[in-house]
């Protein structure tokens, strides 16, 4: 395999991925500590702990160990922090969901338990399939993604059921979650295809002649989503589209127009949709109707207040009093049980993941990679911020789940697949034989030099090479 920096043998690969392993082992330990706390509370509730109660933790541990081994075996050279960060957040998710009894009481619920291994195998599968620059193939098929997005929406609209102000498909699956991937892939592919035209503005107006197919698809999606009253998803996808446009074309005008459009559309929509206006009202003054509109957020905040600075520990608290605690309000449960100190650490874990994602997006070698990774990152970031902000009453409630932690099959699969895509992008591009540039000659320590067995491509192989300055201590 002619990939630069890729380990030649399994042994080298094992050694190369040691940091990932160390961090993952710590994650398993953290999960174990929390798990013991949870199990310890069971006899008090009248349940004896049985061997089968260990199943969720074992499945969790095996799934992440397996993912790591698969990456080692495939001699994957991509990012090593992503998987541990995902693991840490999934550990929080495991604990919170086990806490809420979602894995079944007594008899393990295998459809829930096997969701994580399935999601992780998707992640690893996408990462391995897309590595070495092959992820760019997804960009070739960008109209497929557009059609798929619209099909999903049409399907949901046709068969969906209305529940809690939004439309769900049969069996409370939310296929619209998939849009977070398909629409990102479509937009990244489309902008990549017309990158030059879209980067050059003739006047203060964006190049609409090239932009209109994107706007048309996006407008249709937004309209269909609004018909389902899914304002939160519109916000997430809209922000992601803007971030991708700005990151890909490097033209700040998109951000300016986007924000202006968002302000206009936001006020117009809020005056049209009583649903949104009610949520704004409940956000501004939850005490106007504390037992109705303000109930959810106030119960969540009450739990947090009860948890205080240090929290009562897992399973001591009674988070069942918070409504929809297992999905939208799971952060309130965690903040209640782990206290403010614990929620700072949880948010820090999110920050580690998101900043790593930003860094990977900012360092992808191709514009398509930049845009796809930026899209995934923005979706995750906006979703996280909207959820945390909504639960803490910093922003209005949008009914959005907390990625990686909230309970929800379609959401989990989409997020893991998207992260697999970023992992694939972090693997870099295939080496170009003649491209050994001056950077390879720059001094670096010998052992790191030895570790990279393959030839090293010069930075000039990257599209933005012309703008690069020499890297200070790039190793």
């Amino acid at each position: 395999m002619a990939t630069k920096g890729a380990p030649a043998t399994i042994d080298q690969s094992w050694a190369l991925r040691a940091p990932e392993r160390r961090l993952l082992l710590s994650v398993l330990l953290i999960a174990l500590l929390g798990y013991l706390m949870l199990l310890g509370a069971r006899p008090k509730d009248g349940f004896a702990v049985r061997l089968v109660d260990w199943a969720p933790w074992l499945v969790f541990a095996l799934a992440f160990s397996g993912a790591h081994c698969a990456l080692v075996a495939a001699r994957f050279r991509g990012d090593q922090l992503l998987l541990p960060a995902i693991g840490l957040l999934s550990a929080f998710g495991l604990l919170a969901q086990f806490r809420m009894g979602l894995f079944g009481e007594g008899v393990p619920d295998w459809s829930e338990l096997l969701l994580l291994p399935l999601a992780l195998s998707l992640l690893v599968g996408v990462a391995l399939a897309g590595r070495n620059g092959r992820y760019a193939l997804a960009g070739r098929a960008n109209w497929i993604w557009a059609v798929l997005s619209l099909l999903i929406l049409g399907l949901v609209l046709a068969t969906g059921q209305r529940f809690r102000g939004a439309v769900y498909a049969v069996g409370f699956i939310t296929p619209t979650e998939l849009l977070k991937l398909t629409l990102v892939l479509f937009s990244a592919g489309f902008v990549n295809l017309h990158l030059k035209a879209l980067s050059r503005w003739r006047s203060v107006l964006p190049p609409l002649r090239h932009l209109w197919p994107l706007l048309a698809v996006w407008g249709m999606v937004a309209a269909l989503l609004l018909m389902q009253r899914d304002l939160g998803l519109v916000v997430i996808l809209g922000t992601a589209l803007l971030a991708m446009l700005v990151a890909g074309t490097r033209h700040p005008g998109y951000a300016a127009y986007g924000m202006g459009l968002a302000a206009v559309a936001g006020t117009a929509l809020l005056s049209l949709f009583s649903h949104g206006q009610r949520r704004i009202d409940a956000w501004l003054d939850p005490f106007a109707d504390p037992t109705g509109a303000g109930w959810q957020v106030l119960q969540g905040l009450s739990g947090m207040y009860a948890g205080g600075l240090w929290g009562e520990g897992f399973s001591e608290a009674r988070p069942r009093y918070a409504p929809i605690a297992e999905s939208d309000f799971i952060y309130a449960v965690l903040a209640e049980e782990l206290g403010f100190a614990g929620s700072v650490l949880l948010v820090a874990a999110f920050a580690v993941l998101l900043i790593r994602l930003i860094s990977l997006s900012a360092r992808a070698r191709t514009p398509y990679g930049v845009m796809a990774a930026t899209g995934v990152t923005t979706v995750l970031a906006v979703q996280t911020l909207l959820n945390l902000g909504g639960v803490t009453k910093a922003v209005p409630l949008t009914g959005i789940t907390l990625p990686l932690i909230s309970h929800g099959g379609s959401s989990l699969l989409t997020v893991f697949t998207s992260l697999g895509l970023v992992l694939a992008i972090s693997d870099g591009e295939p080496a170009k034989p003649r491209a050994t540039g001056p950077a390879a000659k720059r001094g670096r320590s010998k052992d790191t030099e030895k570790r990279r067995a393959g030839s090293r491509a010069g930075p000039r192989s990257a599209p933005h090479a012309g703008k690069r300055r020499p890297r200070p201590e790039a190793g």
Partner: protein
Amino acid sequence: MDLLNDLFSSTPWSAMRAGLHLAFGLALVYWMWQVYQLRSALRLRHLARPRAWQLPAAGAVILAFTAILGYQATWQLGGTARPQFVAFMQSHDRRQFNPAHWIQRGRILDQRGRVLAESRNQAGAAERVYPYGPLFAHIIGYADPRFGLSGIESVANRALNGSALDSLDDWSELGRLLLTQSKRPRGQDLVTTLDAGLQRLAMESLMGAPGPGRGAAVVMRPKDGAVLVMASAPSFDPNHLHAGLFNARDPATPLLNRATQGQYPPGSAFKIVLTAQALARGFSGRLDCPADGYTTSRHYRPIRDHEYYSAKRAGRTWVGRGPIDLTTALAQSSNVFFAQLGVLAGHRALAETGERFLFNRSIPFAVAAAGDLRLQAGRLPTISARDRYGLAQASIGQGRVTATPAHLALIAAAVANDGVAMRPRLLRDTEPEALARLMASGDAKRLRVMLRRAVRDGTARGIETEGLEIAGKTGTAENPHGASHSWFVGMAPASAPTLAFAILVEHGGYGSTGAAPIARDLMLKAAEQGML
């Protein structure tokens, strides 16, 4: 597994669980530290140099997270500073360990230490209890998670919840509570100037008075503005609030605090103000008061004295009062006299008097850190200079002039306090504060003598009681809604007043029969208790 079950059921498990909790947190910190340690090994050398937006984007994420955590802290750690939030948790949070359940909201006491409001723990939730039920509903108010706060409960809320951070000690106490997660925060008790005994008597008398049993009574100490009674009937029970109370368009308007907000034509009670104006302008002498009354133009119905109408009803003729002086006119409540007096003084004089007597204002009282309650002064709209009949009507407290019971009590208290109105106080520990001088000290003394005559041998002689020395003015205010409103405004004892009052009975008929007896009963009771 048995071993594990035994361990989980054993006594040291709770300590071990706390240890696990700590270890969990430390392991998280360790993980972060590990990421930091491994940062060089985690570098990706085969990727491109970061684009310029990497740092701003990462900074934005960190900023957003910090903002959210900071805001979360204001709820999670500083929740006590949000009164409505504490009230919500106290009645809607079923978590037994929520510290809000242990906040002992301070009690509200009357001047003798009788409990007007207290919090009791019932089934794990704190419940606010008002032992006197509807008696103090308007002035003490309520603290309800659903309906919020009102009255003193609202104004003094922070002190009651123990979160009035007035001193450095309070802040360090808050810090201690945060760190130790103490379960027993405690609010301050508040002592009011109110008197439960007098209040009960006032309320019962108002409900039992002639008419529909509506009205208001205010009793104040003129020297320091302490409010002993502030009753408004009908009332509601703050122990049993329900949405219907707030939505229904009940014509009896039980939520309205008639004492501070109810605007009524003052009728003859307004003659106190006119007399003060005449004294200030140095009026002396007599005005002729014929039986067929006084009018500014023959197109308007003459203003007559009530004796004319009584005689007419009885089929007799009344000869009129003839020329009388100010003292007699006030004692006999002569409309003809005061209508002429007001017109003689003129429009500007009345407007100035209204200004000096604090009309057309909202006067803060019971001032506390979190806000104040307000009493509405009466309304004295500008009367057009050409409208002399309107001036004549206003001079006898009819037409467009209105007053609230609390405002008239304030005026009576100023007369009793040598012309100086003290700001009404409800909390014992607030400093007395002069609000305004309404009249010269000498005028106030002369006015007291004249008001005393009105009780001794004037319109209110029916309530003259040995030893009380009540001075006051009756009012019988005609209104378009039915029988006249009955007023009695005054003070006792006249020579050195210790209490001033204003009583209003809606549609209670004559002031001398509706309101005046209530004032007498209140003064009798006050004298019994040594407050007079």
